[in-house]
């Protein structure tokens, strides 16, 4: 009796294994493609540009360098990594208002700068290579506000980042 019971258990186990194998290789259920795609996202340039264009929907930024972004659109952009960089650089001179307010109202160009600094984790700011020194008046964000309102400031930031992402 006990031997027959063992055979039954083995047969059930065998059937389950065969069923699982069939489901895995079956063209009806594309399990392989699901597993192969897990964790991989190879967006086209158009998709990257589309995600970066959602920068106008970002409502807040991580307030400490090195900390992950918490806004869903900022997360999506930074997840693109350096793929996003050329499109973010293009936005550095965009002075239109964003939804972000972190001590001061951010223009789209300010958000782009923050996301670039997040992606590259550069020690210098606002230029990645330290080539731009902001005149110190208050010793805080107000100096940046004075600087970016000066003629050609955003262009200078853009130029430094454009060179940086081409060489890093």
């Amino acid at each position, binding site marked *: 009796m006990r031997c027959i019971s063992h055979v039954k258990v083995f047969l059930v186990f065998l059937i389950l294994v065969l069923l699982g194998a069939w489901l895995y290789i079956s063209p009806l259920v594309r399990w392989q493609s699901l597993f192969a795609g897990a964790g991989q996202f190879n967006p086209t340039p158009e998709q990257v540009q589309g995600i970066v264009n959602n920068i106008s929907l970002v409502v807040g930024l991580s*307030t400490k360098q090195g900390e*992950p972004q918490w806004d869903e659109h900022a997360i999506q952009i930074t997840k693109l990594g350096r793929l996003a960089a050329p499109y973010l650089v293009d936005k550095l001179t965009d002075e239109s208002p964003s939804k972000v307010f972190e*001590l001061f109202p951010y223009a789209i160009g300010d958000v782009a700068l923050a996301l670039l600094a997040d992606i590259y984790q550069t020690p210098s700011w606002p230029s990645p290579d330290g080539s731009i020194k902001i005149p110190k008046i208050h*010793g805080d*964000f*107000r100096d940046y506000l004075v600087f970016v309102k000066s003629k050609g400031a955003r262009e200078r930031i853009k130029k430094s980042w454009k060179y940086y992402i081409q060489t890093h």
Partner: protein
Amino acid sequence: MCISGCNRSQPPQRTVGPGPTDCTTGCPLQRNFIIVYGDPGQGGHNAGRLFQLTANTHSREIQANAFPGNIPAFVAGTDIMTVTHISTVAALVSAVGVGNVLYLAYFGHSGPIGGQNGPGPGALFIGETASPGSNLTIRGNANDRPPTDIPANKFRADAQVRLFGCRGGFGPDPIARQMADQLRIPVYGYTNSGGSLFTTDSTLGHGGRAVRQTDINTPPPANATNVWLIPINGSPTFTRF
């Protein structure tokens, strides 16, 4: 030996009372009001001396009992006010280590930490660099210390904590709630989703009106001495956790 049992050979017990009469000999008579301010921040988040200025402004108002809301009354001559800069959770723990704390206020960076697709647990970003013990949060990475590091027995039962920083009460698990769970006293934080601004308008700083576009476009002047930190969207109102 003390009425409340807060003699030096034992950990101090939580005390309740209107004045500094909790102990008889060998124990601190005063109630402690502690205001801490964190690091300025880096890059676009550099607040310079503004956190310090807001902390000093708050200290003056607390000592004059001039800040609106359900704030414990400061008894001049007996209660002690301490304003100090902190860069780590350990420094915060040290600041409240004096015990018999009736009021703790934090000025500095705070807000949610990023999760997979949105806000994760909240944090006080006390230190501006990514260094051990620079964040107060339950997240648990190398730079974080949990709210359980803060000894609850250093606070009086009638104590309260106020977080003057961005999004202290915002998100699925805000830092205000984490601290309230640990300390078992009211912790107040801003639930606004937006960041914060500095203002020199006391009416706005006291929550007397909503933020206007002119407030947004007018950062404090260089010679400002009285400065308030408030959330950007809506009227500044604290939420109790």
